[in-house]
């Protein structure tokens, strides 16, 4: 029984690690796209020192993209760091290490209790970035379809890459919160089970 329990924990831990890595990649892309989208609009400000009212939304876009991207990366990295310690510990366990397996379960529950809010916030940020990137893809699609895009010839490959990137990361950004919700639901259920366990343990302690 312990062998399969150990395997189940390993699969869950690896899956959550994958989810955090996806978040980190998404955050890096979001940061890159906000820069790539906003900075060209601000080139006159940087090169000529002239500022127009019309540049304010682009400046806002860069600042918002930067803040959200950095915050997303930081939160993901913090979770990754703590979670990785557990994964490393888990990898060293043998199937007969009952107490060590329970120790990992206890640490995982403690990790989830501590980071519940942070994990949910990642889902919210993912959704915001997903919507943002899909919105940025719309003018690119329109430009490509109408053929008025300023770039041409082989540069169209770059345009297509940018478009696929925006759509791909945007859709991933929208899907990640669904995964995070699934993860949270399972762990919320486990926390509820530990509350039931606590009642039984409390009775034993009172005997």
């Amino acid at each position, binding site marked *: 029984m312990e062998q399969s329990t150990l395997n*189940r924990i390993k699969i*869950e831990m690896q899956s959550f690690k994958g989810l955090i890595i996806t978040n980190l990649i998404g955050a890096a892309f979001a940061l890159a796209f906000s820069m790539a989208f906003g900075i060209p609009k601000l080139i006159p400000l940087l090169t000529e020192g002239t500022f127009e009212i019309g540049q304010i939304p682009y400046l806002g876009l860069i600042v918002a993209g930067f803040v959200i991207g950095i915050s997303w990366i930081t939160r993901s990295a913090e979770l990754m760091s703590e979670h990785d310690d557990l994964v490393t510990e888990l990898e060293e366990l043998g199937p007969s290490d009952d107490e060590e397996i329970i120790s990992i379960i*206890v640490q995982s*529950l*403690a990790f989830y209790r*501590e980071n519940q809010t942070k994990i949910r916030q990642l889902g919210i940020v993912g959704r915001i970035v997903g919507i943002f990137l899909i919105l940025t893809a719309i003018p690119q699609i329109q430009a490509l379809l109408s053929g008025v895009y300023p770039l041409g010839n082989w540069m169209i490959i770059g345009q297509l890459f940018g478009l696929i990137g925006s759509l791909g990361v945007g859709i991933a950004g929208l899907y990640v919160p669904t*995964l995070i919700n699934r993860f949270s639901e399972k762990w919320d259920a486990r926390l509820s089970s530990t509350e039931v366990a606590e009642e*039984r*343990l409390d009775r*034993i302690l009172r005997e």
Partner: protein
Amino acid sequence: MKGKRTQFEIYWEILTYCRNPRTFTSIIHRCSLNSKIGQEHIGFLENKGYLRRFEEEGQKLLKTTDVAKPFLDAFKEMYLELFSRGPDFKL
């Protein structure tokens, strides 16, 4: 150990660590407790008879007793049960 643990989880950590005789300092270090909280938990477990204090080669040591077995068995059973089905979350 990082994160939020329940008092029962802390009791379990102390009791499993003290299967071999341990000093107070090593217990609070291993279980990431401050001195005051550590003293409270260890005092509670001693009062329940789950921990026994004795002296060996000039060292004051604590060791888990057989009285703690029902608690440790129940804890093991219930916590392993949390992962007995599934895997519940898989990418």
